[in-house]
């Protein structure tokens, strides 16, 4: 027996997904800080989510992919690769110096394998000088954020891209090229796509999907040479069947190889196919002070190219370093992914290699679903399977591998229709079944966490880590919560047991037009500041007329009640609509005059309009009158409603613009003005990809392309900023408006109270893809209804300010005191700051930057 070392200097080489997980796992166990940790990272940025790398092309930023959590107890040295290991002196050498270690963990991952194709390298080949051959310009690999950024930059203005390799990675790369607007080809040596994951029939289904998306597969052929043009640019590829494929850009995705060069040079034993050879404790078979985790490790000779086994190794080594006895349990190599919009999953013995195994297949050409289950010879035990097209059954099936079937095979495979796809499945799973395979969380652990008080999916994620990587098990988490009898309270407040969506349906279907009837028939008490505005908003969305009539008035929040925004001193601010941010000089002058005459503070807002602050209730109608007479209307800045559609100046003036962004923004703002929603809605239109209008930070954002418009949905600024994701590309204006109509109406109908579009999409089962199927393919058969609802909105829009002004009864509400309407509220007083009125407050201090604020004034 070796005596384990449990303290000293620890050096970790590699800050990728697994290296990072290892450091976190160790630090959470080593609470006394016995290990002094140094991490050497070759990449300039800290660990990021490589699994979601391709999301970069959907506009997910590098920051959003970040996995690194700052830890003061770790010395993280980025951009400082380890160059050599001196095992005798126990030091790791970098360009900057040497690091002593008592334990060394290698987490160096893999490098992309580039087959020796004639012409892929700049230099002639192995004889050429220099340590590593350089890829020819225009030839890329697909492994790091830098690789992807380089591909994106190079793709600008080019037309055709070829991916060498039709496996998982190759298809991801192909999708990326497609999103970059390139005509895309895939060259695969095997006779089918994803040969490692799917069988022939699955491959055929996949091929059909891929072709339909405009990607051309070339199967059963190898690339023999990469050829350049005389000017140095790429010309194309020659194929083994003698064919010629023109290409401006090539991505090589032909597999990965473990990065074992440090270990090799240090004389450590390697696996037969490379990788640092380790035992099931992940310790090097040559040197007991050295460990390896992740893709660079060959556990008993086997390397794993997935993150879940790497995470398991990280936990093993962390445990060992604090004196534990964990062993690598073997790995689940199941995969589920979304390729080119097609869901593909494979798990267990997908190819039916176990002796005597039986296949059950299900092929539905209409819905284009392919599914195969591999069963034991007695058809009782599930061994594995492949799903293409519909993978809702994946979480349950994967967790059932090795155990009894959770239901009759066909019932398991046929699309469930209810969207959950997990059905009774999870209840049938044994407690030891892994529900989250990425993080190795079992059903027992989840049930335990629920018993200890986790009440919802976020709490489960936080406490068990289940569902935090690929997310495919989230429906099962929901199901477990529901099954465990945790009351998943959707109740809006003490007055209603319903969620906002349920109330919406009740009101719509039963034609309810008053709060009193709703609360009498479906609730209790007399409501509160939570349910009343919700019901007011639903009634308004369903087109129940002027928001301040009759009982509806008493439901409104003060902002909606006074059609203005309350401020801290009880005054209001007034925001006239300036559609698209375009305004004539005459109107600008009117705003200035109104502000001056009513002594209002003015500020330009982020939504390209002007906010006038400091109006008393009794002044509001007078201010509106002046504005309405000059052609303004309410900007709905006070409502949970569409705020603005911001725009850049677009093709009218801008030399880069490709479409009229201002024109579209104005049309959209006028279309959706006054539309009441669960939360405020913001939008923007940019005239080209330079994105000056910041459309991707909006609930819906539109970016002009040469061919039309790209629509992005689900962005927001605020407390938790989010980038909008690409919903559809190159739309005509007509298509665009149709999709936005449906998007908004579907959101209004189904979102929770105060749930912005980003959170709403996240909470939808199936997320953005589900949304697309509802809006584009009419999967729920709702589109006609949504379209009609929007048509009603557009038709029935009226300006709330103008309506209020026209009605003396309504105007009566705008008084300071019911018994002294001529006395202004004496508590409201102003002082002057930078030439404008601001609320007088004894404790208010102007911001001082330590600079002279004005000539001649000393502070």
């Amino acid at each position: 027996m070796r005596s384990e070392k449990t303290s000293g200097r620890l050096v970790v080489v590699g800050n990728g997904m697994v290296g990072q997980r290892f450091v976190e796992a160790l630090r959470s166990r080593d609470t006394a800080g016995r290990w002094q940790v140094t991490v050497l990272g070759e990449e300039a940025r800290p660990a990021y989510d490589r699994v979601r790398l391709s999301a970069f092309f959907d506009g997910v930023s590098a920051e959003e992919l970040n996995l690194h959590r700052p830890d003061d107890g770790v010395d993280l040295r980025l951009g400082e690769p380890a160059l050599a290991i001196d095992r005798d002196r126990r030091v790791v050498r970098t360009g900057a110096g040497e690091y002593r270690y008592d334990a060394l963990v290698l987490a160096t991952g893999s490098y992309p394998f580039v087959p020796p194709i004639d012409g892929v390298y700049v230099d002639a080949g192995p004889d050429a000088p220099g340590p590593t051959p350089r890829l020819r310009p225009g030839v890329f690999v697909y492994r790091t954020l830098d690789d992807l950024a380089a591909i994106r930059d190079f793709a600008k203005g080019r037309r055709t891209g070829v991916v060498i390799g039709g496996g998982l990675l190759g298809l991801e790369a192909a999708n990326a090229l497609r999103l970059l607007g390139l005509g895309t080809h895939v060259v695969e040596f095997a006779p089918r796509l994803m040969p490692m994951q799917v069988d022939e029939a699955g491959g055929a289904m996949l091929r059909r999907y891929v072709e339909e998306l405009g990607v051309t597969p070339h199967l059963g052929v190898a690339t023999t040479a990469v050829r350049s043009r005389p000017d140095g640019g790429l010309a194309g590829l020659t194929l083994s069947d003698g064919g010629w494929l023109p290409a401006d850009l090539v991505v090589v995705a032909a597999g990965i190889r473990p990065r074992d060069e440090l270990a090799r040079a240090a004389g450590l034993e390697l696996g037969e196919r490379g990788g640092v050879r380790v035992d099931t404790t992940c310790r090097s078979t040559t040197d007991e002070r050295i460990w390896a985790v992740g893709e660079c490790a060959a556990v008993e000779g086997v390397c794993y190219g997935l993150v879940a086994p790497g995470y398991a190794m990280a936990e093993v080594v962390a445990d060992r370093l604090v004196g534990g006895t964990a062993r690598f349990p073997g790995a689940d190599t199941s995969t589920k992914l979304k390729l080119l919009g097609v869901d593909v999953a494979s798990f267990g013995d997908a190819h039916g290699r176990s002796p005597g195994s039986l296949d059950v297949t299900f092929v539905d050409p209409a819905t284009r679903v392919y599914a195969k289950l591999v069963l034991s010879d007695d058809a009782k035990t599930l061994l594995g399977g492949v799903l293409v097209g519909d993978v809702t059954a994946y979480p349950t099936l994967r967790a059932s591998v090795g155990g009894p079937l959770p239901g009759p095979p066909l019932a398991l495979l046929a699309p469930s229709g209810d969207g959950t796809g997990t059905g009774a499945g999870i209840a049938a799973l044994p407690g030891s079944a892994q529900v989250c395979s990425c993080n190795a969380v079992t059903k027992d652990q989840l049930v335990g966490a629920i018993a200890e008080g986790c009440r919802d999916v976020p709490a489960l994620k936080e406490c068990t880590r289940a569902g935090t990587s690929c997310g495919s098990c989230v429906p099962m988490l929901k199901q477990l919560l529901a099954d465990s009898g945790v009351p998943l309270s959707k109740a809006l407040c003490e007055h209603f047991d319903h969620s906002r969506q349920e109330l919406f349906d009740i009101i719509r279907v039963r034609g309810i037009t008053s709060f009193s009837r709703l609360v009498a028939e479906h609730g209790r008490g007399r409501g509160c500041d939570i349910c009343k505005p919700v019901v007011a908003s639903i009634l308004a969305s369903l087109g129940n007329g002027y928001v301040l009539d009759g009982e509806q008035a008493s439901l409104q929040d003060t902002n909606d009640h006074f059609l203005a925004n309350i401020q801290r001193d009880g005054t209001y601010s007034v925001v006239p609509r300036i559609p698209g941010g375009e305004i004539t000089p005459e109107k600008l002058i009117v705003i200035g005059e109104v502000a001056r005459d009513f002594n209002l503070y003015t500020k330009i807002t982020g939504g390209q309009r002007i906010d006038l602050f400091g109006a008393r209730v009794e002044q509001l109608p007078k201010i509106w009158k002046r504005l309405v007479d000059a052609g303004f209307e309410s900007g709905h800045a006070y409502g949970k409603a569409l705020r603005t559609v911001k725009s850049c100046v677009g093709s009218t003036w801008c030399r880069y613009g490709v479409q009229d962004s201002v024109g579209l923004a104005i049309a959209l703002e006028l279309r959706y003005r006054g539309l009441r929603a669960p939360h405020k809605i913001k939008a923007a239109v940019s005239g080209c990809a330079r994105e000056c209008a910041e459309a991707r930070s909006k609930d819906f954002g539109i970016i002009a392309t040469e061919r039309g418009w790209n629509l992005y949905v689900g962005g927001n600024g605020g407390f938790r900023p989010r980038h909008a994701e690409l919903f559809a590309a190159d739309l005509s204006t007509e298509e665009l408006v149709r999709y936005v109509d449906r998007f908004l109406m579907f959101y209004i109908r189904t979102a929770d109270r105060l749930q912005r579009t980003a959170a709403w999409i996240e909470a939808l089962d199936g997320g953005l893809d589900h949304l697309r199927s509802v809006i584009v393919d009419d999967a729920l058969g709702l589109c006609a209804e949504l379209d009609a609802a929007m048509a009603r909105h557009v038709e029935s829009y009226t300006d709330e300010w103008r309506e209020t002004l026209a009605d003396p009864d309504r105007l009566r509400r705008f008084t300071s005191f019911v018994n002294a309407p001529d006395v202004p509220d004496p508590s409201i007083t102003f002082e002057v700051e930078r030439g404008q009125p601001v609320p007088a407050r004894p404790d208010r201090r102007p911001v001082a930057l330590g600079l002279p604020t004005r000539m001649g004034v000393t502070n």
Partner: protein
Amino acid sequence: MTLDATITDGLRWTVVCPYPRLEPERGVAALVDGEQVALFRTYDGALYAIGQRDPIAGAYVMARGIVGTRGDIPTVASPLHKQVYDLRTGECLDVPGVAVPTYRVRCRAGLVEVATPAVSRPMADVGGAR
């Protein structure tokens, strides 16, 4: 409108407005003896009067809050930060120790009357603008 006042039981009752001027579940502000009062008529027709000043935010806005119930208690929520107050006692149901003053209010001959001085609660408000 007449600003009329009578003295009964040592209280000074000020006529504020005709009863129908109050909309159900919506407040109005009134100026009574120099004090700002928020008046409410609840769904069942009952009348309540509390101080107009939001003791937490320090602004005079209570009449503009949303009226409702919590259990059986008639309530109003501050329009600024949504703390809920008991209309009967003035007590804040969300922040212990905070209250608004309450006033006696009645309807006589179709007119709403408010009595001063306010009924003080033994609790302090959190005092002043923050």
